[in-house]
């Protein structure tokens, strides 16, 4: 009995810290990556709570597809819109992420 409470305890602490980190990090890309890993941790939590259907759905939709949509929009938001000069158009997301 105490072992399963230990597992659940770690899972819950993991989920809560991931949520806090996800909203507190400086860079958006890291926030999105943290959110996707939060989605996978929650999928494990659904399995622990006896809901395998939801685990599959959460992993596939909540973590996978939402993560893909967020990254697609993030990449688009970080590239300047094409209407100003063309040379900034190819300043893709990678450069401006490392330096704050």
């Amino acid at each position, binding site marked *: 009995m105490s072992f399963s409470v230990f597992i659940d305890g770690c899972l819950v602490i993991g989920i809560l810290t991931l949520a806090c980190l996800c909203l507190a990090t400086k860079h958006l890309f890291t926030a999105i990556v943290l959110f996707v890993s939060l989605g996978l941790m929650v999928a494990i939590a659904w399995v622990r709570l*006896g809901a395998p259907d939801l685990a599959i759905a959460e992993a596939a939709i909540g973590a996978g597809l939402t993560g893909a949509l967020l990254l697609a929009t993030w990449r688009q938001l970080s590239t300047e819109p094409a209407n100003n000069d063309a040379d900034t158009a190819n300043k893709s997301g990678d450069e401006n992420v490392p330096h704050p």
Partner: protein
Amino acid sequence: MSQDLLYIIASIGLFGIGLYGLIVAPHIIRKILAINIMSIGVFMLLVASASTVNGTPDPVLHAMVLTGIVVAIAGTALALFLAGKIHTLGQASDKDGH
């Protein structure tokens, strides 16, 4: 019994963290992340109260959470789409209050 206690605390905690993030975070993607975290919190409360039934967990709640997950991604996709279109429309970011 104490397993559900843990998950109830986690669910309301997630709801609170998401609500705080939604109010405080200025950037649109962080607001969308905050709303998703809040919905994960509500779903966790639903699933936690499903498993208190001795033996088989309550399938009605699981069906509700499944519907909720799909509604959450629909809302997120629309919000991201609007943010993207505002961005492509150009720089005139009008700082209007309410």
